[in-house]
């Protein structure tokens, strides 16, 4: 019997190594796998490269991982926090973390490409800007495009709404965001889900992430209360 569920956060994170590239779903605080991210603080992996849309705000989730000094490098589209200087901004000003800024659509497409076996693609995004510096460009049909490469993760930490033992997932509202894309792009995809359902309770037409992309699922009922 296929059973991708694991009983604890610790089991879900077992084996994540120092130096890993960790993909974090979520947009703002919505749909980010905070229980897994905070578990990573306990788990102990360091020297991480984190790929995430935002750099974390407040003191929870990614901010805790950053404050613990575990992240060497952040790949991000929008590291500015609404609520004023964040843990990330303090580290960045102090020169204690590297930052790679990527346009949001390019980040999504590079992750999608990694999951889909596309090593590189052309996009108009960034042409004629600093984003294109050092990158190959090409005219196609009279327009200039930038060559961008697939972005693979060692681990993806995903927040889902429902899951089953095969790893089929659904998401709630805008909690979907980067999660399904990142789930396809990592060698090890770990999921925290608000609800673990019996196999078959997710209708086959409603599965958003098929279990083929998922390695471990842990139920986190606290997610039912908030995003």
């Amino acid at each position: 019997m296929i059973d991708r569920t694991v009983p604890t956060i610790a089991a879900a994170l077992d084996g994540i190594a120092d130096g890993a590239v960790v993909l974090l779903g979520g947009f703002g605080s919505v749909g980010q796998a905070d229980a897994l991210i905070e578990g990573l603080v306990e788990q102990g992996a360091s020297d991480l490269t984190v790929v995430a849309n935002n750099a974390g705000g407040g003191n929870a989730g990614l901010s805790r991982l950053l404050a613990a000094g575990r992240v060497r490098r952040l790949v991000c589209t929008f590291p500015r926090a609404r609520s004023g200087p964040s843990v990330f901004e303090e580290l960045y000003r102090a020169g204690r973390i590297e930052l790679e800024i990527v346009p949001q659509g390019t980040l999504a497409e590079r992750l999608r490409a990694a999951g889909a076996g596309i090593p590189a693609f052309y996009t108009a995004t960034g042409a004629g800007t600093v984003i294109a510096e050092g990158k190959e460009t090409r005219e196609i049909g009279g327009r200039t495009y930038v060559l961008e490469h697939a972005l693979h993760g060692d681990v993806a930490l995903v927040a889902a709404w429902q899951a089953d033992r095969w790893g089929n997932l659904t998401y709630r509202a805008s909690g979907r965001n980067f999660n399904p894309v990142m789930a396809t792009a990592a060698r090890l995809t770990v999921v925290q889900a608000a609800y673990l359902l019996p196999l078959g309770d997710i209708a086959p037409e409603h599965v958003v992430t098929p279990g083929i992309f998922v390695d471990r699922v842990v139920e986190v009922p606290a997610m039912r209360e908030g995003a």
Partner: protein
Amino acid sequence: MSAGSNRTAMAARVARDIPEGWYVNLGIGMPTLIADHVPASREVVFHSENGILGLGPAPPAGQADPWLINAGKEAVTLRRGGSFFHHADSFAMIRGGHLDLCVLGAFQVAENGDLANWTTSLNDTAPAIGGAMDLAVGAQRLWVLMEHTTRDGRPRIVRRCSYPLTASGVVRRIYTDLAVIEVTGAGLVVRDLAAGVDFATVQAHTEAALLAPEQAAA
């Protein structure tokens, strides 16, 4: 400047120009206000980068769904007929030219339509691009909504952007507190003036040369 439109009037002015049936992405900040000025009877479908079509108004106090935010991380609602999708699909919509319109804020717009709206310096302590570069190159039309000048009175509509570009040659129309200005092959054409503002005043606050509609038509 005391003459000219306030933020509410500026947002309402843009809203007037959005027809029923368009798919529209509104940038973070002032552009987000535009949605409040599209009457519910006129169906416009608002898109958010984080995987939403059919954004509705802010929820009543205390009734926010914690799972439902817009690209500015504010609580929103979903209209009947709305849908959710993931980030790669969301930006496929943007990059694939499926949005009729995107309205962004800006630091500077150049007379050739260049847009600078993400950072004022490459030494920024926390530069943030978000989805602006994708929206700028992907939407069918890009309009900018911004104050005509900086807080200390320097023009934002310039001959060449001095700030790092978001995208080149993409802005089609500029809405400010003073005027509505079209970016055309012939140059910047003033299409509309705010109440109590004349052409000379707009030009005085603009680095790039402006054309009156009758000059553009000539």
